[in-house]
């Protein structure tokens, strides 16, 4: 009798296990419904699908051009013209010269501040993959994107000196460039604030029916701000045609990425938002180009955001106010410069194709250097904008209070004109 009972219980248990029945006798494969539950199955394996940190799997980096310039898969070489490829290399080399010379200019007290893009020049390839009028929301280390679209060295210098030719009338520090004609939002210093704005702008594009997208650049540090989360969530839930392009260069000022996040970088967050995500070698112009082109197609045609994480390495200090030797291993920096710099592999590729040589490079270096030297002297001697502009553009129209304050300031300055740097400004 007892053995029959035991056998009955045992077979019942097995039956229950086989059919996934709960103790209440309800099928585990059904659930009460409700939309946040739909599609989600039950399981008796508590840790199924969980990824404890010790077993972390790292998304690999997409690469087409290896660090020597060898093509890994000929079918994936982008359909860029020779002109575009040469333009890319020229800009990358130009930015290198600008970085060196403007850094020196800051140290000499000519300009107040500067930030180098050294090591991250390959981001220019993302600009090549966009339409000219795709709006750019950037962080600050992407000036090469603006140069690709036509921003000139003279404009860089005018902005750096904040003279009367600066598009923003001298209101911001160097490096805080922007342009309406080139579809590039003005840089602001607080990090990641541009991020939720990008999907908002993109939503406007979607409503208008235009076939454009937005690209939003940000760094590995900025990606930790609440604004970054807000941006990706809004873009995904509202279906915004925006590309989130993260430049993971290993550092946020002195903070290395292992103090910045514990998961697999930023690309791993894509699935959390239901968003497609791609990790690329940030020193490979072809990989960046292909990923951005694909992301653009998804964004424009499917109104879905795409996340690209571009792995690179910051070769310079954070800015002229920082000294990387205090925290970066300069041996690694030198090794990267020698072996992994994005210019090396593109140069090798183009030399191989007969599209570039040492002569051309020498000529380019000299021309850029000369342009910078002349430009620095010119921009420095241009006057600063008129004092009236101190009060303009706060609101759409000058308010009565600001009118009064302007008058008060002008009267004060008239009396103390020898003590204010009036002669630096347009009169």
């Amino acid at each position: 009798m007892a053995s029959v009972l035991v056998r009955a219980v045992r077979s019942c248990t097995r039956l229950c296990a086989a059919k996934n029945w709960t103790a209440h006798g309800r099928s585990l494969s059904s659930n009460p419904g409700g939309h946040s539950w739909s599609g989600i199955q039950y399981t008796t394996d508590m840790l199924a699908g969980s990824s404890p940190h010790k077993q972390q799997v790292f998304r690999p980096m997409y690469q087409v051009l290896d660090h020597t310039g060898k093509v890994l898969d000929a079918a994936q070489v982008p359909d860029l013209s020779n002109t575009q490829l040469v333009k890319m290399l020229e800009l990358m080399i130009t930015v290198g010269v600008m970085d060196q010379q403007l850094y020196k200019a800051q140290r000499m007290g000519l300009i107040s501040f500067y930030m180098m893009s050294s090591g991250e020049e390959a981001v220019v390839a993302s600009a090549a993959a966009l339409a000219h009028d795709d709006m750019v929301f950037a962080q600050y280390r992407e000036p090469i994107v603006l140069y690709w679209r036509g921003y000139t060295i003279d404009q860089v210098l005018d902005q750096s000196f904040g003279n009367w030719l600066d598009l923003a009338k001298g209101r911001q520090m160097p490096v805080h460039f922007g342009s309406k004609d080139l579809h590039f939002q003005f840089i602001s210093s607080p990090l990641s604030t541009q991020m939720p704005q990008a999907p908002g702008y993109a939503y406007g594009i979607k409503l208008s029916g235009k076939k454009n997208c937005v690209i939003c650049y940000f760094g590995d540090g900025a990606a930790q701000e609440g604004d970054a989360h807000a941006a990706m969530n809004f873009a995904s839930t509202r279906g915004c045609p925006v590309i989130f392009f993260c430049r993971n260069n290993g550092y946020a000022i002195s903070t290395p990425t292992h103090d910045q996040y514990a998961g697999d970088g930023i690309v791993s967050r894509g699935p959390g938002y239901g968003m497609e995500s791609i990790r690329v070698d940030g020193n490979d112009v072809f990989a960046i180009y292909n990923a951005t082109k694909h992301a653009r197609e998804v964004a424009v045609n499917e109104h879905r955001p795409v996340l690209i994480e571009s792995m690179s390495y910051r070769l310079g200090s954070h800015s002229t106010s920082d000294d990387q030797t205090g925290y970066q291993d300069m041996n690694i920096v030198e090794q990267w410069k020698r072996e992994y710099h994005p210019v090396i592999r593109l140069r090798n590729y183009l030399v191989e194709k007969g599209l570039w040589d040492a002569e051309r490079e020498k000529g380019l270096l000299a021309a850029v250097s000369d342009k910078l030297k002349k430009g620095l002297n010119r921009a420095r001697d241009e006057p600063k904008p008129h004092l009236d502009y101190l009060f303009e553009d706060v609101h759409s129209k000058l308010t009565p209070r600001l009118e009064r304050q302007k008058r008060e300031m002008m009267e004060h300055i008239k009396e103390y004109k020898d003590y204010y740097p009036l002669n630096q400004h347009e009169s």
Partner: protein
Amino acid sequence: PDRPPGKTKMSLTSSRLVWRCLRSFSTGVKGWDSPNLPKGYVAEPSPVKGETKKMNLVEAIRSGLDIALQTDPTAVVFGEDVAFGGVFRCSVGLQAKYGKSRVFNTPLCEQGILGFGIGLAVHGNTAVAEIQFADYIHPAFDQVVNEAAKYRYRSASLYHCGRLTVRAPYGAVGHGGLYHSQSVESFYAHIPGITVVIPRGPSQAKGLLLSAIRDDNPTFFFEPKALYRAAIEDVPVGDYTLPLSQAEILHEGSNVTVIGYGAQIQPLRQACIVAKEQLGVSCELIDLRTIVPWDEDTIIKSVCKTGRVVIAHEDTFTGGFAGELIATIQAECFLNLEAPIQRVCSWDTPFPLVYEPFCVPSKYRCFEAIKKVVSF
């Protein structure tokens, strides 16, 4: 602007004042039970000509949003719970009428709502964002002070987010406590580059909201939630706007300039009535309407005439907007002042639940301030 010369002679001496107070005291404090005192919100006549309909504050705002969506094909309304009609019902029916792409829910994220709204406005759309309670707007502060307010200035008007309007219910509601009663206008008044508007009732709200939405500067529109259902009056059904940065004199007077905005106008009205009945004091009641940029000329002209000022707002004393008004008034009207300026505000505490009646600048405290300022 011309200022009236000198001051108007005070018609009450201190002794007459004392006599009147004694008289009312001896017959019982009837002033507050007077039949002349309104029981609740004082409905106003329509500010513009045209067909009107009885609406409460919610309905007036909804009507404003409806007209904005109707007249501007780029207009978009969004925020938490906006799709089903909003927790205060301000967007009821709008999604059905204008579609899911123009009226929609956002994730629960105020910094996202502001950032998204700024981006939309920069694109050229009219972006009308709702923040569920002013108490929750704080995560968005960075987007306001560092982005919205500076967008135009930092690009020399090449870009701007002027088409952004952010609406939020503010103020005491009887049972809100710390986190459903806040006044936040003083934080925002301090930021150059934005506009802050606070309406006192339904017909004002609709006209001011439409102005705010159509204005080319990012505007913050704080709605007195206590009046959402309680304030009912004839509101024009059509499209109309009321001017920003213009204060409004609700009733002229000669003895005291009384300044307030939003829900505070109601207790101030009552205090002015009692001051007239009990003290014979003639108050000039002014609704500031736009907090920044504010209408200095109307205020200064009034103060130069009366020489005495009482300012009341629900926000706390320290750092509250009354400080800015007083600083300007004393600088511009010093010799015209007959008494120190009185301000009546909430005590400097977080907004308490059970102590609310004691904390807010009640009509009794407002009356006492008027009495103080005339008996200096």
